[in-house]
Structures are given as structure tokens and as C-alpha cells.
């Protein structure tokens, strides 16, 4: 244990930071967990209900629908962002003189506030006036079709978040030793073999870090989908965040809403732990 080797006054030195962390993270989280064990709705008597809300969650079809939408959204968008981000990073690494311009151009979608880009995409998807329908040559009901709508939201998220992944991976690429690449070239390895045998393994930890960030972000997705579709049609795009928002801030049911929020926290936590294990495996 490294804690044993700490200076005796270390805890005192860390105390301010720990206090701030406790005040802004631990306390609110603990309070939400506490709320989730209680009945706190407008017209119901306040009461301790233990795991009652979690039992209700298990039988709530709307929760499972939202969970399915959220997991699908996260899996597809993160996979696409990693694949596209890696491709863009590899291209950017060879950008040469145009590099500064390319960096700027790639970063634009990431820099635009999500609500603004969602509004832009709402117009792009507009079946009557949107550029996408124009390019397709026929009006497509992107946001109003129960199957297409979630994919339309995924496409927007990919457009928005790929730059972040690309930039992170680009930084990782700088860390791949040139000597290794040159040695591979001397040994007669082709571009594909070099990529598979050297670049990709060297990049794996960075890819995992990017995946952690993007997965946790995607599991919490709210603003993009809420602006694009409001969760519709037929709840086909209702994510866990949107469901929790509605229960908490529209129906004012703080007990059940908190249980939903805790469920989201647990799911994001499980994802983070799984990645952490992968990451540790990769390091060894």
C-alpha cells in the first residue's frame, strides 16, 4: 500500500481537495441514492420504500425500452466513432503542410455546442427543405420514422464526436516510435502489416481511453436526441437520460426518477470497470 508511505501530514494537505470532491460529487450522489430509496412524489406521502423503486424498474417496459435504445445508441455510435476517428487520425498524421488547416477543419463539429448542432441537423434532416432529402433525390422521413430516427441521431453523434476521437488517437500516433516503423520497413513489412503489427498494438491503450470517454458520454446522451426528436416517435428514441429527465423534471417524481438515475450510474460504472480491466490487461 502506497498510502503507508505517505508523509504524516499528507491527509491534511489533501483535505481541501477531498472536501471539495465530497461536496460536489460524493454528497449529491449519496443523496440521489438516498432519494431513490424513498417515495418523493407530489401527491404521495413521503415514505421509505427501500428497493421498491428498483423492483418497479424491473417491471417497467418503458425503462427496458429506454435501456435498449441507450445501449444500441452507445454501441453503434462508439464503434463508428472509433473506426472513423482512427482513419482520420492516420490521414492527419500524414497531412504534411496542410496540417494546421486540417486540424481546424476536423475540430469544427466538436466545437459547436450540441444543441446548436442538433438544430442544424434537424434542418439537414427536414424532409421538405433538408439538404439530405435533396441529395437522396426523394424525401425521407429521417426523424419521424421509428426505425430511422435513432439512426439519424447516431449519425449526428458520430459527426459531432469523431473529431474528439481522431484528435486523441492522433496524439497516440505521435507516441509510436519511428525506429519501430523504420525497422518494420527494413524488414519488408507492407503498410497493412505495419499497421496491424505495430501501430495498432501501440495505439491500443489510447483507443481504450477514447472508448471509455465516448461510451460513458454516449450512455448519458440527452441533448442531441432531445432536440432532434424529443424521444419520439413512439418512444423509439427515448434514452435513459430523457426518461429520467421526464420523470424527475416533468412528473416531479424524485424518488423513482432518482432510481432511474442510479441505474444509469450503475450501467456507466459497469462499462467503465470493464474498460479498466481491458486497459490493465493491455498494459501487462
Amino acid at each position, binding site marked *: 500500500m502506497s498510502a503507508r508511505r505517505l508523509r504524516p501530514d499528507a491527509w491534511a494537505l489533501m483535505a481541501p481537495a477531498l472536501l471539495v470532491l465530497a461536496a460536489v460529487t460524493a454528497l449529491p450522489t449519496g443523496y440521489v441514492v438516498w432519494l431513490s430509496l424513498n417515495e418523493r412524489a407530489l401527491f404521495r406521502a413521503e415514505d421509505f420504500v427501500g428497493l421498491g423503486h428498483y423492483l418497479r424498474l424491473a417491471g417497467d417496459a418503458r425503462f427496458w425500452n429506454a435501456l435498449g435504445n441507450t445501449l444500441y445508441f452507445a454501441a453503434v455510435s462508439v464503434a463508428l466513432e472509433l473506426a472513423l476517428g482512427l482513419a482520420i487520425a492516420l490521414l492527419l498524421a500524414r497531412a504534411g503542410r496542410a496540417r494546421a488547416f486540417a486540424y481546424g477543419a476536423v475540430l469544427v463539429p466538436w466545437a459547436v455546442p450540441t444543441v446548436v448542432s442538433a438544430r442544424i441537423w434537424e434542418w439537414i434532416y427536414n424532409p421538405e427543405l433538408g439538404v439530405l432529402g435533396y441529395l437522396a433525390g426523394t424525401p425521407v422521413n429521417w426523424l419521424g420514422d421509428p426505425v430511422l430516427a435513432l439512426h439519424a441521431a447516431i449519425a449526428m453523434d458520430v459527426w459531432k464526436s469523431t473529431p474528439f476521437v481522431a484528435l486523441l488517437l492522433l496524439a497516440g500516433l505521435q507516441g509510436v516510435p519511428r525506429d519501430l516503423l523504420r525497422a518494420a520497413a527494413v524488414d519488408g513489412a507492407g503498410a497493412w502489416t505495419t499497421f496491424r503489427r505495430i501501430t495498432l498494438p501501440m495505439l491500443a491503450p489510447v483507443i481504450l481511453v477514447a472508448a471509455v470517454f465516448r461510451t460513458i458520454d454516449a450512455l448519458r446522451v440527452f441533448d442531441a436526441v432531445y432536440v432532434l426528436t*424529443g424521444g419520439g416517435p413512439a418512444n423509439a428514441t427515448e434514452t435513459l437520460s430523457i426518461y429520467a429527465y421526464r420523470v424527475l423534471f416533468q412528473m416531479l417524481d424524485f424518488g423513482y426518477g432518482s432510481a432511474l438515475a442510479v441505474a444509469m450510474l450503475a450501467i456507466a460504472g459497469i462499462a467503465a470497470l470493464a474498460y479498466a480491466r481491458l486497459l490493465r490487461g493491455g498494459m501487462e
Partner: protein
Amino acid sequence: MTGRAPRRRVLRALAALPLAGLAGACSAPQAPPPADAIVFRHPKLFGDPQPLDTLVGLFGRAHGVRVRRETLPASSDEQHLFYAINLRARSRAFDVLALDTIWVAEFARAGWLRDLSHAISASDRADLFHAPLASVSWEARQYALPWFADAGLLYYRADLLAAQGLAAPRTWTDLVDAVRRVKRVRPDLHGFVWQGKQYEGLVCNALEFIWGHGGDLDRPAEPAVRGLAFMRALVTAGVTPPFVTTLTEEPARVLFGRGKALFLRNWPYAWRLLERSGSPLQRRVGVCPLPHASGHATASALGGWHLGVNAFSERAAIAERLAAFLAAAPAQKALALAYGYSPPRRSLYADPELAAAQPFLASIGTVIETARPRPVSPYYVALSQTLQSEFSAVLAGVRTPSEALAAIARERRALASP
């Protein structure tokens, strides 16, 4: 409002007000502490705040109080949340509050609103339209005063219908026939656009289809099924474009306003935007009550705002007076002249001055007469979530009308017995 003439009329209407205000002041003289003001919370106004300030100023001078207006957040969700958070904490930061029609039962049940039954006289009751009065009532008591009323209307392209020798549709069959006939010469045109996105507006539209077929959520039977089936059939038959599932009020209004659709269902506000100078549809639009299935009556969903008094207000007596003053006929007339807000009182639709200044109001009066409130329930916000998703599922074709109505009935039972 544009131009000077309407403003002069507003001023003249306002000149008649001090009498009404003073009459109230004399009956029970009060000496409120002048330092702190009574606070009136209301949504953002569509236009110049001057006429409302003048009204409020008149009241203040007559009663020797300062009245401060404060604007609510922009979105309906935020407004609801603002009130709920503050009133749950027994806030006294505002005294008179403007309420969306769908919140009154909830706030009344929560004990956040003063009972204002005594502030609605017998003549008021006779004068007020049925739906606004019903939507401020909870367990036979009134917890708010109707301030202005909205109701769904059918806008149509009078020029295109006339070219085919058609009149404004009275039944849904008329509307569908008109779309078919006009589309034969104008295949580029959309037929009938309305609000089909999964949100509160869809609830209003779907209820209108149900009511117009003689159905009702309280009796989920055959007519309600027919209403929802008709809603879906509009899309499958090509009368309504499939992307209606993305439309809210403004996108539908813009589409119609660019001349791309024959019929539009919208609230009264759209009229001024369609008729303003520069609009390609100026003097080419007609408006009428929503169609109904033959053998049934038209019914449109009620919207609008009411005035309530904070149950925790320290100055409830004077706050009640302010609410009553603003919801009385003279103030409603002034606001109708200034903003085009449609009053919830029958008498004002017979007012010649108002009719001359806002000719459009005449067509709204008959519609508000037939308007119906959405379910008046303290659980309306929760119920509406189910209504939105079920109606959206029917419209998207992933659920049958009877499945949706059964799910809605289950949710209503669950909400009624927590």
C-alpha cells in the same frame, strides 16, 4: 400590433378602466406597505409590453401598491418546473401567477393555489365559455380565473378551394375529398398538415380526432378507436405527409405559410403571421372550425392561460384583486386589442369595437364555444406522457388504436389509485 389606430383604441379602452379599478378599491380600503410590490408572474408577451404595463400601472395607482411583472422561462417544461420548485418550498416570491390550462388541477390538489371560487360571480359564470371554466375547476371549486383562451382551428387555402368550386370543409370526408380534388391539379401540394411529433401538441391533435368522431377518453370505446384510426389513415391515404411525425406548431405553420399545403391545423396565433405583410398567403387563407365525422360535432382542444393566486402569498387579498382586475372584461378587451389574445368571455365577441379592430376574433369565438379541456386531473403531466407516446405509436403505425386506448386506460387507472 402595427399602426397607430389600434394603439389609440387600446388607450381608449384603458381609459374606461380606472372606474372598474376604483370601484374595487373603495369597497375595502387597504393600506399595504408601499415598500414591497406584489409580483405577477406571466409568460413572455408576443409584442410590446407597454399595454400590459399600463393596465398594471392603473391597478397600482388605484390601490396604492406597486405591481412588479416578472417573466417566466421560455419553455413550458421550465415554467412548470419553476412553479413546482418554488411552490413546493412555499415561496412567497410571487403573488399572482399565470397558469397553463393543464396545471390548475395539479397545483390546486397540491394546495398551492388559493380557492378563487368567490371571485367568479354568477354573471361571470354565464359569460365565460364552458371549457376555460371547466379547466380552472377542481372538485367543484375554482382555483384560477380564465385569462385568455386558445383553441385548435382549421386554416385553409381559400384561393385553391375556390378554384375548384369548393367551400370550407365541414366534415372530415369533405376535407379528404378536397385534398384529392386539389391534388389532381396541384400534385406538388401536401394535403393536410398538423402537429404529429411526440409532444404535448400531438395530444391536442389526437384528442380532436377522437372527439370529432364522438369519442372520449373517459369511455374508450368504438368512436375513440375510429378517431385514432382516422388519424393514422390520413397518413396511409396520403392526405397527410408521413413526416407529420416530426411537425410541431411552427414547422407546420411555415410549411403552410410557404404555400406547400392545402390545410393546416393550428392555434389562433398563426393567423397574424399568415396575414402579415410580406406573407405569400396574404388574403388567400380562410379559417373555420375543425371538421368532424358526419353525424358528430366539431370539438377543439382548449389551450390558454389562467390567473391564480399563490396560496402562500402574504398579500393574498390585494393579489386576488389584481387577478380579478386582469381577468375582468375591460382588461381582457385591452389585451385582446393590444396582443390579439382571444378572451374567454362570450360578451367580448359581441363587442363592436373589438370586432372592428380584430375581425379574426369573430371566427375564434364560435370555436372556443365548442372547445374541450384536456383531461382535468392533478396527474395530467404524468398522463400526458402516456398519451404522447401511445398516440405517437398509433400515428407511426406500430400500435393499433385499441391497443393504445387500452394502455391509456390502464395508465389512468394506475394514476387514479397510487
